[in-house]
């Protein structure tokens, strides 16, 4: 009886005045905890730090950056680590490393020149074969075997060298029946052998390997693999060229000072020159033409050591040398290699590039000659396929020529191609290599040429595709635009093969979207549907169809417009494979969320998007990954948030009802819907300024009902609890008292079901912290909830207390007692004459009971029970191992009494003194806290009506720790 009757009466208004924090203008300055962190690297320090994997030191900066990207921009710990490890592992060059190297080297050319490295992968992926390949290596007999493999050479290298030795001594080794992958592995092995031979100082052997490799390029069996073979083998040649160059460069080192990048031959010493000369003499005596050409081209750069004009003399000679290569395909790739080396070493020497192309034109007729035709018959390769094998080489040559070339030259090139019967193959390469602006400006000419051109087996649709690619990058003259589309589409629509058709159409969709209205886009989409529907051709063209959708939504992101394109939705129907369908839906939704600025009620958009969202939702099954679900839910939620019928709340609610029935399998969507409906109820209240009419009251009740029946279908218990509480608050705010009661009752009865452990982000965590937080929140709400007239006083509070009492708490936790102290806070607030807060237009218990003594007595009884519970618990903590907890709890309880109890009451006063002593009894109290608490009491005692604190302070001894 000694607590509540003596609850300190409070004057909340004046207290709040006193306690209000003085408002201080915030000084944001440089530092803010939420500002992105930029990682500044401190490399040198890191490298020296022994053992530890380097970490980055972080410092905050004010620059506005995405924290993630900024971390990646700097050298992140992993790449730092990798960089440190690189020289140790000396792995065979990965793509990345190669790319980096190429980038460094082509820096003379400029970054706008698409380097070979970017073509490489494309070629390897495109020109593949299932035929069996063979490698024929003939290592000329080597006198005086130079295999004194010292201990310095690793075991791995040695076995490899031994393997190679097997090849040697004049033996001829033919590796037959290799699959493409085997072949690539073999080539990579040769590449490695080359490096090993070089590093073990067997230069002659290295040269032999390179010669043998380049010899493989004269072999055109399995011709469809030739471009890829070229890529693989020229990698080896590049390696070789680099090795030789660096070796000679290292010989020029004078007192550890290496030559500057643009050294002159005069500064090269005689030994280096002699070595270089030796290489050239050796290569000049290679018997066969193709290896001699390739190896000399590979070390073209070394001419810099001998004379200033060396390279400019060599290039024309090598160019002319290629004329001796009879096979046109082999020859054109040789030209591509020469151009590649030329661009790298001496990009200023354009003449040879042009000469290469003109020479190629001169030999062009060979392609249709008997020798080639016979070969194709033997290999069963069709002419159209054969012609496409030329494209990478011609594209590359033309790209080199076109780089920074004046329009005059390009025009001349075009004319020359024209003279050669407007060959389709050439035309295609011109379009893929020349600047898009150049092509686009002459689109009509090109269309004319394409129409006239001698097809001779090269598929015309590829030409239109190439043209389309250019037009996607650059704009043709305004006046020609429609005509271009008409001309192109006239041809495209006639393509019979669905694959050919779709490859072309895909490219032209972008042009159409870019320059025309929805009418044209619609026509194009209709045409695609027409072509792809028969025989379910779309099944083989999902990537292209997907890309079409992507292009359409990139250009038409006004969704009202987009859905007024009649064929858009029918187009979507072609995606019948669910995974693709969902992908496409996701793209559309992402675009919607990104671009839609204002909320919408357009029925066309809503219908279409509901349909799309439904598709996404329906793809969810038991096997769907959590991430995927989260993503889909986020997209659907994004859509739901953008739907607004303005003042038509009824319509809005029925939309939510419909959405609920559609998306019932995605919990986050249901949660969003509940929030949205609650928001709708609050919006209604705002509009009615709190005074509901009969109609709005009914509507609000409908909203509340929506929530009430939706919440139980959720599986997460805390989501349910919080939503019950939240919805209850909304119901209360809208004066739906019985509904609010129902929510709170539901919440109370749900509490016993809270499990000990819950899954948070896939990990099992104890639930007590969440429960504690929820209960505090709940109690705060219960203060203002008026008692139900037919239920007893404080029905809900009692109910909740019973639940807490029966809940199986963790054995060694004090959570229950902590909650009880919170209950004391609530009870003391309830005894006040006027509650600290109210809900507008709802009479809380303070008004209902008006400080009725029966009511107060009831509260009193409750608190008595609670206090005795607390004290009992404190007693059970008397054991040795729990003394610390006892001390903490005692102080906690003491503070509660200090804040909420009326200490003028003697018994209460005594209780607090006892608690104080208990807290200190066993030396577990934190002296600092105790001192501060005492100081606080003394300070409070100076306030009016607080003089009794002075006495209290005197009765509270401070125990110094012994």
């Amino acid at each position, binding site marked *: 009886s000694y607590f509540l009757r003596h609850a300190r009466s409070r004057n909340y208004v004046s207290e709040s005045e006193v306690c209000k924090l003085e408002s201080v203008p915030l000084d944001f300055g440089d530092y803010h905890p939420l500002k992105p962190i930029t990682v500044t690297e401190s490399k040198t320090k890191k490298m020296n730090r022994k053992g530890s994997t380097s970490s980055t030191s972080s410092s905050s900066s004010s620059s506005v950056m995405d924290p993630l990207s900024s971390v990646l921009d700097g050298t992140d710990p992993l790449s730092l680590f990798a960089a440190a490890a690189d020289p140790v592992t000396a792995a065979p060059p990965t793509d990345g490393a190669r790319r980096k190297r190429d980038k460094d080297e082509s820096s003379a050319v400029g970054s706008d020149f698409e380097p070979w490295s970017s073509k490489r992968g494309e070629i390897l992926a495109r020109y593949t074969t299932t035929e069996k390949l063979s490698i024929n290596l003939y290592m000329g007999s080597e006198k005086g075997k130079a295999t004194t493999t010292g201990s310095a050479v690793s075991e791995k290298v040695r076995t490899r060298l031994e393997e190679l030795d097997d090849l040697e001594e004049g033996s001829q080794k033919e590796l037959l029946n290799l699959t493409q992958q085997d072949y690539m592995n073999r080539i990579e092995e040769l590449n490695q052998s080359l490096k090993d031979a070089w590093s073990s100082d067997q230069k002659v052997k290295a040269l032999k390997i390179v010669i043998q490799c380049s010899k493989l390029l*004269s072999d055109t069996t399995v011709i469809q693999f030739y471009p890829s073979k070229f890529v693989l083998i020229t990698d080896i040649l590049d390696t070789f060229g680099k090795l030789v160059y660096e070796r000679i460069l290292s010989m020029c080192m004078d007192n550890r000072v290496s030559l500057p990048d643009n050294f002159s031959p005069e500064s090269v*010493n*005689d*030994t280096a*020159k*002699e070595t270089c*000369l030796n290489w050239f*003499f050796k290569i*000049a*005596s290679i*018997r*066969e*033409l*193709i290896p*001699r050409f390739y190896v000399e081209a590979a070390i073209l750069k070394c001419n810099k050591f001998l004379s200033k004009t060396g390279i400019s003399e060599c290039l024309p*000679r090598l160019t*002319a*040398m290629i*004329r*001796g*290569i*009879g*096979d046109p395909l*082999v020859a054109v790739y040789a030209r591509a290699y020469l151009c590649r080396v030329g661009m790298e070493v001496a990009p200023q020497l354009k003449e040879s590039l042009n000469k290469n192309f003109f*020479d190629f034109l*001169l*030999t062009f*007729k*060979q392609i249709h*000659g*008997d*020798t080639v035709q016979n070969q194709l018959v033997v290999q069963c390769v069709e002419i159209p396929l054969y012609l496409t094998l030329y494209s990478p080489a011609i594209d590359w040559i033309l790209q080199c020529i076109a780089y920074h070339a004046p329009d005059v030259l390009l025009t001349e090139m075009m004319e020359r191609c024209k003279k050669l019967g407007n060959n389709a193959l050439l035309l295609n390469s011109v379009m893929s290599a020349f600047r898009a602006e150049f092509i686009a400006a002459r689109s009509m000419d090109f269309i004319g040429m394409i129409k006239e051109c001698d097809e001779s087996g090269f598929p015309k649709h590829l030409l239109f595709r190439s043209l389309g690619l250019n037009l996607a990058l650059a704009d043709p003259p305004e006046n020609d635009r429609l005509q271009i589309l008409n001309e192109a589409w006239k041809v495209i629509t006639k393509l019979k093969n669905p694959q050919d058709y779709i490859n072309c159409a895909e490219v032209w969709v972008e042009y159409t979207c870019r320059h025309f209205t929805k009418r044209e886009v619609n026509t194009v989409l209709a045409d695609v549907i027409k072509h792809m529907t028969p025989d379910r051709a779309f099944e083989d063209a999902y990537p292209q169809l997907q890309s079409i959708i992507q292009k359409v939504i990139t250009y038409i992101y006004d969704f009202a417009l987009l859905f007024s394109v009649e064929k858009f939705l029918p187009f979507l129907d072609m995606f019948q494979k669910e995974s693709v369908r969902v992908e496409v839906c996701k793209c559309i939704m992402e675009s919607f969320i990104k671009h839609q600025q204002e909320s919408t009620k357009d029925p066309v958009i809503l219908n279409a998007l509901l349909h799309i969202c439904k598709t996404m939702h329906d793809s969810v099954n038991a096997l769907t990954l959590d991430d995927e679900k989260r993503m889909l839910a986020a997209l659907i939620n994004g859509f739901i948030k953008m739907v607004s019928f303005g003042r038509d709340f009824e319509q809005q609610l029925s939309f939510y009802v419909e959405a609920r029935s559609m998306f019932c399998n995605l919990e986050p969507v249901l949660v969003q819907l509940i929030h949205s409906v609650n928001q709708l109820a609050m919006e209604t209240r705002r509009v009615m300024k709190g005074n509901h009419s009969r109609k709005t009251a009914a509507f609000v009740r409908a909203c509340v009902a929506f929530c009430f029946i939706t919440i139980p279908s959720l599986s997460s218990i805390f989501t349910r609890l919080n939503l019950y509480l939240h919805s209850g608050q909304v119901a209360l705010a809208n004066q739906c008292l019985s509904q609010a009661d129902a929510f709170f009752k539901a919440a109370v009865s749900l509490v016993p079901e809270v499990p000990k452990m819950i899954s948070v982000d896939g990990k099992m965590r104890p639930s007590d912290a969440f429960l504690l937080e929820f209960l505090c929140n709940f109690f705060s709400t219960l203060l203002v909830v008026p008692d139900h007239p037919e239920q007893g006083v404080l029905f809900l509070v009692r109910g909740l207390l019973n639940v807490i009492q029966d809940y199986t708490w963790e054995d060694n936790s004090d959570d229950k007692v902590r909650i009880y102290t919170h209950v004391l806070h609530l009870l003391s607030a309830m005894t006040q004459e006027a509650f600290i807060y109210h809900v507008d237009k709802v009479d809380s218990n303070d008004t209902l009971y008006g400080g009725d003594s029966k009511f107060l007595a009831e509260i009193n009884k409750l608190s008595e029970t609670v206090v005795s519970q607390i004290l009992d618990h404190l007693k059970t903590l008397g054991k040795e191992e729990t003394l610390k907890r006892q001390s903490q709890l005692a102080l906690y309880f003491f503070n509660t009494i200090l804040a909420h109890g009326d200490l003028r009451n003697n018994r209460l006063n005594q209780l607090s003194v006892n608690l104080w002593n208990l807290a200190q009894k066993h030396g577990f109290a934190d002296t600092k806290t105790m001192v501060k608490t005492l100081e606080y009491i003394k300070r409070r005692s100076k306030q009016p009506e607080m003089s009794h604190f002075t006495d209290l302070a005197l009765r509270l001894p401070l125990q110094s720790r012994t």
Partner: protein
Amino acid sequence: MGTALDVRVKRAGKVYRDGEVLSGVVVITSKDTVQHQGISLTMEGSVNLQLSAKNVGVFEAFCNTAKPIQIISSTIEMVKPGKLPSGKTEIPFEFPLQMKGNKVLYETYHGVFVNIQYTLRCDMRRSLLAKDLTKTCEFIVHSLSQKGKLLPSPVDFTITPETLQNVKERASLPRFLIRGHLNSTNCVITQPLTGELVVESAEAAVKSIELQLVRVETCGCAEGYARDATEIQNIQIADGDVCRGLPIPIHMVFPRLFTCPTLETTNFKVEFEVNIVVLLHDDHLITENFPLKLCRM
């Protein structure tokens, strides 16, 4: 094995000419002091002739090998008997390459039946207990530039079935017409052999076109002479069925050591020729021969 002997000439390419001074160092490296009975250095140049078994009897061939013609020879005593300190000792030397009278210094040439070689040999004589040490080092001699201007002597050629000799059944030959030219058959040895070749027409597919460089060595003596032609190198200039009517470059670098300016002496001759060899797909082999005159400018 403590002591190492090395002879190093000054020039990286080891190339010297008549009238120049051959200089360099003898390097002796040893951990301990070296006791020796004197170090001498010998410069020698000689022509080795070998008669092929084809032309003379086996016995004669054997006999004749051992008869080198000396071109130049001189010896100098570098160090008198005594001791060399431990570590690396470098002893510089100089030989003037001066021929007496009308004699000339032939250019270094490595052939099959004729070999012209120049060496430096360093001998370190030692006491009975230790073996004598010897080290030889070849150096290369280039003959002096020839006086007067080299007159270019271009050659045009046309090869058709009719121009061929040594044909058994002319009728079975496929039709072809190959034209071309060599820019000059008088060649500077440091410059490549150049020219052009055009396959104007050929019924059969071309398999390969090659340049075959041939040395013609003649060894003569009182009993008569022997003349042998052997291949030095074979350079392919066309591979596969080349484009008709498109000039293909003829380009061949003369290999070092294996070629020298055309040489004619009383005892031996070294001459060079080039064959243009066209190989057709039905294994017809067409060869056109051009004698060359090499010189050094």
